[in-house]
């Protein structure tokens, strides 16, 4: 396992510090993870290569995948229709391996804004966007996003006008949600690739808006 060491002492590409878990004092729960992994390999349940391949597959998923879907919807009206009718099929059509995930896209318009939360756990469209941000999993977000969503949005810097209807989506069961943000003004000449650069992770959760060109 050559990559266990030495990646804790610098910042990642996203600018967050790595947790100092790898070379700190071995914890009970880390020991349990190693034990489960080794037992499953010894029993022929899994191979180390399968485990690494699963890690690699998840590492390959990122908000850039969702941004590409959004930019395509902004530039291809027929694709947008298919996305809103069946998010999973549309994502697969673009070549993204989202596994068995049932994806629902909800569209922001001139008079509607959408916000995604999971109050019961922390369901997230991870098979498209990768692992969720830490705040999405907190008690504070899970508790308040359904009761005072406009106050939560203000904490994220989004002050929603009173004449906009806010639709909050609680991911309580089998669906996973992605917000299709409204295309920013002044982007008529931009290509889908350029547009994708404007689409942030938070704009696809509904706690943010796309960047301006």
């Amino acid at each position, binding site marked *: *396992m050559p*990559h*266990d*060491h030495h*990646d*804790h002492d610098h910042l990642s590409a*996203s600018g*967050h*510090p*790595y*947790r100092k*878990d*790898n*070379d*700190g*004092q*071995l*914890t009970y*729960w*880390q*020991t*349990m*993870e*190693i*034990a*489960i*992994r*080794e*037992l*499953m390999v010894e029993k022929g*349940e*899994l191979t180390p290569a*399968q*485990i*690494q391949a*699963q*890690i690699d597959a*998840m*590492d390959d998923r990122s908000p850039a995948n969702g941004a590409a879907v959004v930019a395509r919807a902004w530039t291809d009206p027929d694709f947008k229709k298919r996305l809103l009718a069946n998010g999973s099929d549309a994502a697969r059509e673009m070549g993204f391996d989202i596994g068995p995930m049932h994806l629902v896209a909800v569209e922001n318009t001139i008079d509607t804004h959408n916000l995604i*939360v999971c*109050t*019961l*756990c922390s369901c997230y469209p991870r098979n498209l966007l990768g*692992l969720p*941000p*830490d*705040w999405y*999993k*907190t*008690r*504070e*977000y*899970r*508790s*308040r*996003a*359904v*009761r005072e969503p406009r106050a*939560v949005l203000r*904490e994220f810097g989004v002050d929603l006008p009173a004449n906009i209807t806010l639709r909050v989506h609680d991911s309580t069961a089998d669906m996973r949600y992605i917000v299709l943000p409204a295309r920013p003004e002044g982007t008529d000449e931009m290509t889908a690739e350029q547009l994708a650069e404007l689409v942030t992770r938070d704009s696809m959760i509904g706690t943010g808006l796309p960047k301006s060109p």
Partner: protein
Amino acid sequence: MENPEHRWHDMGGDAAGPVPMDGHDFAIWEKRVDALVILGQQRGHFTVDGLRRALEDMGEQAFESMTYYERWVASLNQNLIEAGVYSLEELGTKMEEIKARGDTYGAVQS
């Protein structure tokens, strides 16, 4: 005991403070837990609902005192034990063997 009619994890609408915005990148042991959870489901040993059930039954104290992936590995273990993939005797023996290898996560990998 918690209120059985309004369980601790069912927190939609509860009062809470500002959303903490700080984040972290995932450590390799956390990514491995994530992978084992996915692969264990693919092997048919448990469902995502079984994982959630175990997390919920761990109680609010676990939510407050353990990190996300610490709770997940505990739930993964609970589900694998229930599925008969390995025994507690095997787990305990293996964990002791691992601890004897060294003091850090990196040092004890086989």
